């Protein structure tokens, strides 16, 4: 029986002698509440040491304090979680960087971890290392299929649970959970992005590799097979995003995330739209008539969260999905097909981008730059 309350308070750096029997090891991990419900790869010393071959530095250093438990994420403990998730060692730097990005105060991980909302931290990887690691950006970016996507996302989730203490039903009190809470990691389809990729837009060199983290819901599909203009496709995007049930509409600082498929992006770009043009169009058109909201929501939330607009327009108010154009986050993801996606934000959170550097602080261009010589013993 899993003692979920016990695992909530358990020290995350404990080590246990176990037998060599795989079934017993799998059961041991499950009994300790370390899993997401699926069997994990037992984090034996040998496997964890292999994972640490892509970490250069003291293995007991503090990489982050993960809320709500605020336990220290050391390299060895994060490597154990990455091992359990099925990561290859070369994925580990991305896991580390993503966890650190989520622990930036702007991201508000404490709230994301303990909310009743169904949001989860999404990781979008950019740059050459995304391609080196085979992080899928196209047909099955959200899964299933690519080991990198599945295991990096899973490693992060296990770390949030096992180190951060977001124990399902005890401290992670999402009303119904989410498939996105199993694994939520993709790469941007930079080859088919007619504009600047996300990391360049955020000020990083094209040859750098970054992770960007967003707290958001699982993707809402935007199916548009008829529009052949930018305005047409963006009208469908705006319509899809205009939903009264999305958390973000009640949070003025929310950053709705729009992931355009390559085909939709090409059509929009062909009409001369820049990313800022997209943002401006969505700001103007992604709006919800006030009478779509319940009277209680208008009284307790809308008129307070959008006070200026409410006071100005009253019953004719069109509630914006985003309160400023720049709040729309845009990237290009997916393969062939005319489906884009809209991911409502958790709301009270800001996305964070971090660049991959070596131990000297230099931006790395290859994942092999992070493989350290010699072995790690723990």
């Amino acid at each position, binding site marked *: 029986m899993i003692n979920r*309350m016990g695992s*909530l*308070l358990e020290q995350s750096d404990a080590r246990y002698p176990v037998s060599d029997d795989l079934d017993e090891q799998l059961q041991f991990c499950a009994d300790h509440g370390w899993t997401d419900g699926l069997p994990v790869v037992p984090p034996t010393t040998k496997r964890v040491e292999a994972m640490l071959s892509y970490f250069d530095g003291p293995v007991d250093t503090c990489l982050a304090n993960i809320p*709500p438990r605020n336990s220290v994420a050391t390299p060895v403990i994060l490597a154990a979680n990455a091992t359990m998730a099925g990561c290859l060692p070369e994925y580990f730097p991305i896991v580390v960087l993503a966890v650190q990005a989520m622990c930036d105060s702007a991201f508000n991980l404490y709230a994301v971890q*303990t909310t009743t909302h169904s949001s989860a931290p999404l990781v979008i990887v950019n740059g050459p290392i995304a391609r080196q690691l085979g992080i899928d950006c196209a047909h099955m970016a959200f899964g299933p299929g690519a080991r990198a996507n599945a295991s990096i996302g899973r490693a992060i989730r296990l770390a949030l649970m096992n180190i951060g*203490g977001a124990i399902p039903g*005890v*401290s992670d*009190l999402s009303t119904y959970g989410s498939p996105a809470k199993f694994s939520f990691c993709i790469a941007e389809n930079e080859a088919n992005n007619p504009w600047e990729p996300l990391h360049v837009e955020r000020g990083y060199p094209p040859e750098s590799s970054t992770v960007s983290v967003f707290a958001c819901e699982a993707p809402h599909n935007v199916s548009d097979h008829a529009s052949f203009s930018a305005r047409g496709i963006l009208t469908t995007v705006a319509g899809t995003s205009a939903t009264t049930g999305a958390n973000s509409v009640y949070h003025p600082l929310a950053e709705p995330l729009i992931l355009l498929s390559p085909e939709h992006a090409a059509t929009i770009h062909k009409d001369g739209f820049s990313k800022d043009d997209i943002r401006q169009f969505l700001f103007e058109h992604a709006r919800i008539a006030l009478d779509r909201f319940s009277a*209680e929501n208008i009284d307790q939330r809308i008129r307070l969260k959008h006070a200026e607009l409410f006071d100005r327009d009253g019953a004719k108010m069109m509630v914006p999905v985003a309160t400023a154009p720049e709040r729309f986050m845009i990237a290009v993801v997916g393969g062939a097909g005319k489906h884009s996606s809209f991911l409502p934000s958790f709301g009270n959170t800001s996305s964070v981008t971090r660049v991959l550097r070596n131990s000297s602080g230099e931006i790395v261009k290859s994942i092999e730059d992070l493989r350290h010589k010699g072995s790690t013993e723990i």
Partner: protein
Amino acid sequence: MAELSRKGTPVILISSGPFVNLAKAQAQVFAIPNLMVIAIPHPLGGIALSEVYGRAQVAAGHIAGILKAKP
């Protein structure tokens, strides 16, 4: 809350049922393991204001009892 408690101010947390375990765990995280937690029925959101007042009154009674009992 933890800072107030360390300064000697009596601190009592009111939590609706499903969040009590999280509250107690966080009290340990913030080094106030003896934090008093009063559980009230869940949910609090979406109920009539009169019902909110009723629950507040019950909780207030518990709070008064705890504070009077403190040495």
